[in-house]
């Protein structure tokens, strides 16, 4: 057995403990017992504690209570387990405390349970090494999904979130297809020609009767055409009430205008 002298007396062998590498009391125990193959009786707890305190003081982190309490927890567990080994086994248990059997079973159950997750974390690290070797393709630009995923729609209970999904779906990115709509071809010069033609045939006409049924754009351009003809002195326009119908009459050119 390591740490046993030639005379058969148990002696403490030097044990180098880097406390920073242990992730907790169970980790420390497992490491000591399974990896370092050390019996708990060989672990010099006093030296571990003083070494830790010196280390903390040197590092100037003696005020870090989280670390201190974790260390306290770790050491108290080791002290308890070691005490049970050293003290006479006929000692009477204190009321309310776990019986030695219960304490033993509990500690072993904790160690067995912890060891599984410790080993699983090593496996996870291996998986991470493999996973970090591949690159998923990032969609070019700012491609967004228009059709929300089934699970997103089915799982949402938020009306606003659902609204966002619907808006994205109906959002039109391309210019609308207006090929089915007939183009309206209208221009000022053409409207001037039309009005002159009407006046040549009838001398006068009602604006509402002639253009009232036309699309708004045609009506607007016909009005501009009237203003143009008014400016040229070719027509007269009368309106008996504001926003009422307009009567358009051809104006006879005066003699000097004919000459000009």
């Amino acid at each position, binding site marked *: 057995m390591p740490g046993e002298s030639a005379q058969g007396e148990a002696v403490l062998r030097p044990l180098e403990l880097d406390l920073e*590498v242990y*992730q*907790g*009391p*169970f*980790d420390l*125990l*497992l490491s000591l*017992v*399974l990896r370092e*193959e050390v*019996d*708990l*009786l060989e672990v010099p707890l006093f030296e571990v504690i003083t070494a830790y305190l010196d280390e903390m003081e040197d590092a100037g982190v003696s005020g870090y209570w*989280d670390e201190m*309490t*974790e260390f306290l*927890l*770790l050491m108290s*567990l080791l002290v308890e*387990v070691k005490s*049970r*080994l050293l003290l006479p*086994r*006929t000692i009477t248990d204190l009321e309310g405390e776990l019986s030695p*059997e219960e304490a*033993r079973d509990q*500690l*072993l159950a*904790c160690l*067995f*349970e*912890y*060891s*599984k*997750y*410790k*080993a*699983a*974390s*090593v*496996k*996870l*690290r291996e*998986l*991470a090494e493999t*996973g*970090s*070797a*591949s*690159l*998923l*393709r*990032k*969609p070019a630009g700012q*491609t967004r999904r228009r*059709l929300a*995923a*089934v*699970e997103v729609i089915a799982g949402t209970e938020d009306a606003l979130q659902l609204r966002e999904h619907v808006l994205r779906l109906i959002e039109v990115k391309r210019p609308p297809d207006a090929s089915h709509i007939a183009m309206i071809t209208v221009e000022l010069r053409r409207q001037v020609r039309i009005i002159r033609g009407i006046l040549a045939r009838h001398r006068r006409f009602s604006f509402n009767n002639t253009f009232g049924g036309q699309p708004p754009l045609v009506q607007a351009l016909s009005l501009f055409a009237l203003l143009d003809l008014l400016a040229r002195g070719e027509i007269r326009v009368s309106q008996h009430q504001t926003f009422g119908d307009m009567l358009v009459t051809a104006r006879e050119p005066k003699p000097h205008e004919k000459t000009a």
Partner: protein
Amino acid sequence: MHLTSDFDPSTLKRDLEALLFAAGDPITVDNLFQALGCDGDDPAQRDQVVAALQQIETEFPPGGERGFELARLSGGWAFRTNPRCRETVAKLFELPEDATRLSSAAMECLSVVAYLQPVSRPQIAEIRGVNCDSPMRTLLDRELVTEVGRVHGGGGALLYGTTQRFEAIFGLAGVDDLPPIESFALSEEQKEDLRRRLGLLTVPE
């Protein structure tokens, strides 16, 4: 496109490849059904789509000779670069976050969450025998775990579970893809050794 019983397999395969390429991130089979206009409740149509996916997987197998591969990740499917091309890809592009840099404490917490989810911090601390606030903060910050609910009663501690990002980074199709936790249990010989060295082999009288 709407699938019928006499759809063209090559068209289906082509459309699937386009969807997988455009998605980038893992895309679930249900999402693929949705995009293809496929009736997910129709077993025949599901089989056709899954068969086409498996055919693409055969052409771009994980670790194969192609530069990219079709991988089952995070409950879905995704094209990704072949891990064997890591060095070449890394010369031009930043590879994903290296989870191997996580501390041992964080990795232990992550393994507890992965296997026991949903799980609370006190439960994790009980298993590890040590407070887990700091490593859990790291895992939350890196979006490897997330809050998934609260314990009913008793103060309602927050419950944690792993994220899809965790599955993607660790190359898992899902948490069911992890080896059974019992496969990591100590052997009977190791348990016996542990009992002996802790002086717990015999029951104190």
